[in-house]
């Protein structure tokens, strides 16, 4: 007879829960990229606010990025915060509600934007369930850290982004709100991209970067400055929307840029303390996303100072793909093999030979894909800058092809 005490943290999640979200996300990603192919002519002329672009953008941002973030949080929050998920049963219900809400919302945005309000409410309900789930989970954490602050604040912004989105959909539905529609739209983009996604990626990067590089003895003090600067930036930009003040907007962009500069320098300082000399390709890809995010924060500040709305639209598109989507892709290349490995091999460690996480994926294919993603984004940036339809079509075809290849790479993990 043998016993284990207390080796189990008791915090691990049923892998089917994060897997449900992540598999939905991978398929939604391919669908969003294929949809964007149809919108190439409009995109290249700087017209982003069209039903088809809305549908593709929301399928990408909600179907892929949001669902991945939710799935990853169901896996990462328990291990990183040493706290079990409050209710896994609620998690499965939340997945169903959110998945149906996203599909219905994207379809109605493309086909009949005026009717997007009701599916939008269903989606908002899914978001509320998720935020409630995570709030109850984080509440149980014994010792709160700066990471908790980043993640908890990002959840608050997710809720506000969803509420602002529902209000926008209501404007179309009830043909009202013309006076403040632009401000609410700005708030929706600001809270979604900076408040939710960026703060969340920053927060988890503080766990992932030291873990994947085996960094040790680094200071976490700069994370407080990152948080303070970035939150102040969001607050100033938020104020500018309602004050209709260009000066406040420029101040907000400057603060957001400063926060991101400190964040990128902090990640660099952490990596300088690493024990693992050669970093994995997927993790290096996530680091490339940090560099892209940094460059785009600087570019956004410059575009706001010179007052270029067209450039700001292009920067937002590149920010979504280069910073948010690339960060998520990089981390998914690590998370999916880990989840499948845990499911398949965790109980066999110590009894028989098991593969390493690196061996769960075709490393060569991952390396090629990472290079092509960067090439496709560079091509898209040039195409948008010179407003070239053929060039953008090539870039978008490459992105669509890569999203399918990415889905294939993820699904191939299950054969290991």
């Amino acid at each position, binding site marked *: 007879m*043998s016993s284990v005490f*207390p*080796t189990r943290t008791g915090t691990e999640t049923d892998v089917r829960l994060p897997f449900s979200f992540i598999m939905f996300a991978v398929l939604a990603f391919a669908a969003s990229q294929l949809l964007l192919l149809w919108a190439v002519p409009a995109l290249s002329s700087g017209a982003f606010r069209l039903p088809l672009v809305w549908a593709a953008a929301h399928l990408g941002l909600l179907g892929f990025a949001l669902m991945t973030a939710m799935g990853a949080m169901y896996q990462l929050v328990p*291990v990183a915060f040493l706290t079990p998920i409050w209710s896994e049963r609620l998690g499965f219900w939340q997945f169903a509600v959110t998945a149906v809400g996203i599909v219905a919302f994207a379809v109605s945005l493309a086909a009949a934007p005026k009717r997007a309000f009701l599916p939008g409410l269903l989606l908002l309900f899914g978001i509320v369930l998720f935020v409630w789930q995570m709030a109850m989970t984080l509440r149980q954490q014994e010792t709160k850290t700066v990471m908790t602050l980043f993640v908890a604040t990002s959840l608050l912004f997710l809720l506000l982004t969803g509420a602002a989105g529902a209000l926008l959909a209501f404007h179309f539905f009830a043909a009202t709100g013309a006076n403040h529609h632009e401000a609410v739209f700005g708030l929706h983009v600001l809270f979604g991209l900076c408040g939710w996604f960026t703060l969340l990626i920053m927060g988890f990067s503080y766990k992932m970067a030291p873990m994947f590089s085996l960094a040790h003895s680094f200071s976490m003090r700069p994370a407080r400055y990152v948080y303070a600067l970035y939150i102040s930036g969001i607050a100033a930009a938020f104020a500018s929307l309602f004050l209709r003040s260009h000066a406040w907007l420029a101040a907000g962009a400057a603060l957001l840029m400063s926060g991101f500069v400190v964040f990128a320098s902090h990640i660099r300082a952490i990596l300088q303390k690493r*024990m693992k000399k050669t970093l994995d390709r997927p993790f290096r890809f996530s680091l490339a996303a940090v560099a892209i995010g940094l460059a785009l924060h600087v570019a956004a500040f410059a575009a706001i100072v010179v007052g270029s709305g067209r450039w700001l639209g292009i920067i937002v598109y590149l920010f979504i793909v280069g910073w948010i989507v690339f960060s998520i892709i990089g981390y998914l290349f690590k998370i999916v093999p*880990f989840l499948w490995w*845990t499911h398949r091999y965790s109980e066999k460690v110590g009894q028989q030979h098991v593969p390493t996480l690196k061996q769960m994926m075709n490393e060569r294919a991952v390396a090629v894909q990472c290079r092509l993603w960067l090439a496709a984004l560079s091509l898209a940036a040039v195409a948008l800058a010179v407003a070239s339809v053929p060039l953008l079509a090539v870039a978008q075809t490459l992105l669509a092809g890569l999203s399918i290849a990415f889905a294939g790479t993820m699904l191939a993990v299950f054969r290991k």
Partner: protein
Amino acid sequence: MDVRELAMQQLKTVIDPELGINVVDLGLIYDLKIAGGQIDVLMTLTTPGCPLHDSIAGGVKRALEQIDGVRDVRVQVTWNPPWTPERMSEEALRQLGHFS
């Protein structure tokens, strides 16, 4: 070969799947108490909140259970003292890209 040597040999088969290095070379094993058919292991992980916590600690238990005559294996994970890179062997450092 005595039980302690056998135990260390078995522990070298437990690999951290992220780093590809065994738990002994990583310096995760703090103490091994062997009395009769019982082994008590005091160990750590490279970071608190490691997603591989249960896989590695469970692997240590299963590996030691395979030794003839061992009836009971108890594994305790501690964060005090925390793991430091100085605990790694030269082999682990070499695998992490040092000395090249």
